[in-house]
Structure formats: C-alpha cells, structure tokens
C-alpha cells in the first residue's frame, strides 16, 4: 500500500521545472552523455564545469593525483569526447 511519506517525496523533492533556459530533454541528453564518458573524463568534467565550488586546477590536480600541467590537455580530450557523444545522439 501507499506509504504516508509519499506526500513529502512527491511534492518536495521533485522539481517541477528544470533550470531556466534548459529543457528536461537538454538536461537528460547531457546527463546521459556524461554517464557514457569513461570515469576519469566524467569526473574531470564534473569537477571543472559542474562543481558549484569551482575548484582550481591545482585542487583538481591534487584530487586526481595528476600534475597540474596535465589537467588542461586531459580536459581538451575529454571535452572532445563529450562533443562526440552529444553529436552521436543528435538526429
């Protein structure tokens, strides 16, 4: 049977609208492409572009145990893979 807690779960946790300027479809496509990236690339792009704390390259390098100078080139490769995945999903 239905649990009493379903009231909170339905109305409070589920956002009615996505962020301004984006459709849920945009978000789902981006989300799925991120999931399809290999974990190192996914984690790097999440840290660089999606983390609201905007960590510096030095912080990210420490987190990934990589030299700071390697972050930029790795980011370039990961962005290119991301672009390839999103292009694959385009009609």
């Amino acid at each position, binding site marked *: 049977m239905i649990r009493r807690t379903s009231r909170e779960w339905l109305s409070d946790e589920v956002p009615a609208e996505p962020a301004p300027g984006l459709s849920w479809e945009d978000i789902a496509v981006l989300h799925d492409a991120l999931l399809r990236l290999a974990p190192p690339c996914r984690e790097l792009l999440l840290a660089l*572009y999606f983390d609201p704390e905007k960590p510096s390259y030095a912080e990210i390098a420490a987190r990934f145990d990589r030299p700071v100078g390697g972050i930029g080139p790795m980011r370039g490769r990961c962005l290119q893979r*991301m672009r390839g995945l999103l292009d694959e999903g385009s009609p």
Partner: protein
Amino acid sequence: MTAPTGSSGAAGRPDFGTLADWLEGRLDAEQADRVAAAVERDPGLRAAVDWLRGFMRCAEALPLRTPPPLIRQQLRQHFGRWSKAKAILEQPVVRLPAVLMFDSRLDRPLTAVRGAADAEVIHLAYRSDLADLVIDIHRLPDGRLRLEGQVLPIEDSVAPVFEATATGPGIEVRTIDGDELGRFALSPVPIEADALQVGNGELVLLAPLDLRRG
C-alpha cells in the same frame, strides 16, 4: 566540419583544449590574439568554439540532479521507440478497465471521514488484467481531495513510472510526477471528478471514481 586537432595552439591550429583555455581566459595576450585570429578565419574552429560555449552555458545552468523519473522514462521510451522498427512504433497503447475490488467507505460511517481534523483516509483498490491499482484519498481543508496512488504491475517488464489524470465535468487534474515504484499523487481534486486514468506510455488503466460518497 573538421574538428580542431594538434597538440598545441601556440603555433599550429588550436586544439580543443586551447580553445577552452582561450574561452576561459587562461591564455596570455599574444596566444589569445593568435587563437582569436585562427577562430576568425576557420569555420571549423568557430563551430568548436560555439559548441564549447554552449556546453559551458549548459554546465553553468545544469542542476546536478537527475530529471524526474517520469520525464526520464518518457524520454527513454521516445528514444527507444524512435530507434526501433516501425512495427513497434505502431503498437497501440493497451487500455484496460480497472475494476473496483475494495472500498474502505463501505465499512465506515460518513462522519468518520468528514469530521475529524486529522480525517481518515479512504482506501480504494482496483484490479485489471495487467496491473493492480491502489488509491488513498485524503480530504483537504477546502473540501477538495488529494489522491495518492500506486500502480502494481503484475509483470516486471512493465515500465514502472505512471502519471495520472482525474477527470470529470470540466475537470482535469494531472500528476506533477510519478516515481519508479509506480506511485503518483493528484491534488487538489474536486469531488465531482468521476474517472481516473493512469498510464505509463504503454498501458493505461481506466478507473471509475465516486468521490462524493463519504
């Protein structure tokens, strides 16, 4: 469109990383000028820059959360159907009547529902050939109702997220969202609503409602 390649934007054609550095202001003035000039004359680089700008804008605005389950399921169904054979596209949605099997009001007096501040909940249970449906009805302070339901498919293969619509004369109340346990909620529903339709894009259950009876 040719993708930017090469290891460095310092001398040759700027690569993707260099373009990102340029957009993020990480290059010195001389390097930035070189990249700007290259982008100006190369349509492939302009396309790459446009993509990077779009990606960064999306990333800025993107909440790091998964879309609601119902939206995800609908999108997956759309993509799935789109990529499969036409025969699947043409498969009709199965519409089934749901038959009322249990109504808690039959055993309870009217005043028990309307009287107390913490009003009792009415329980309904329906059955169909492919799924059972249970509904809890809560009375709101303004006399309208909140319906909380759950679809219990008989087979695991049924898509689990359902949305619901309560209808009646001049009435149409839809769910905001459902979850992956088949639960949904409708509110506020006028007592004049006389039908409930619950569907997941493949299966629709049609259940009669009698909300006037206490």
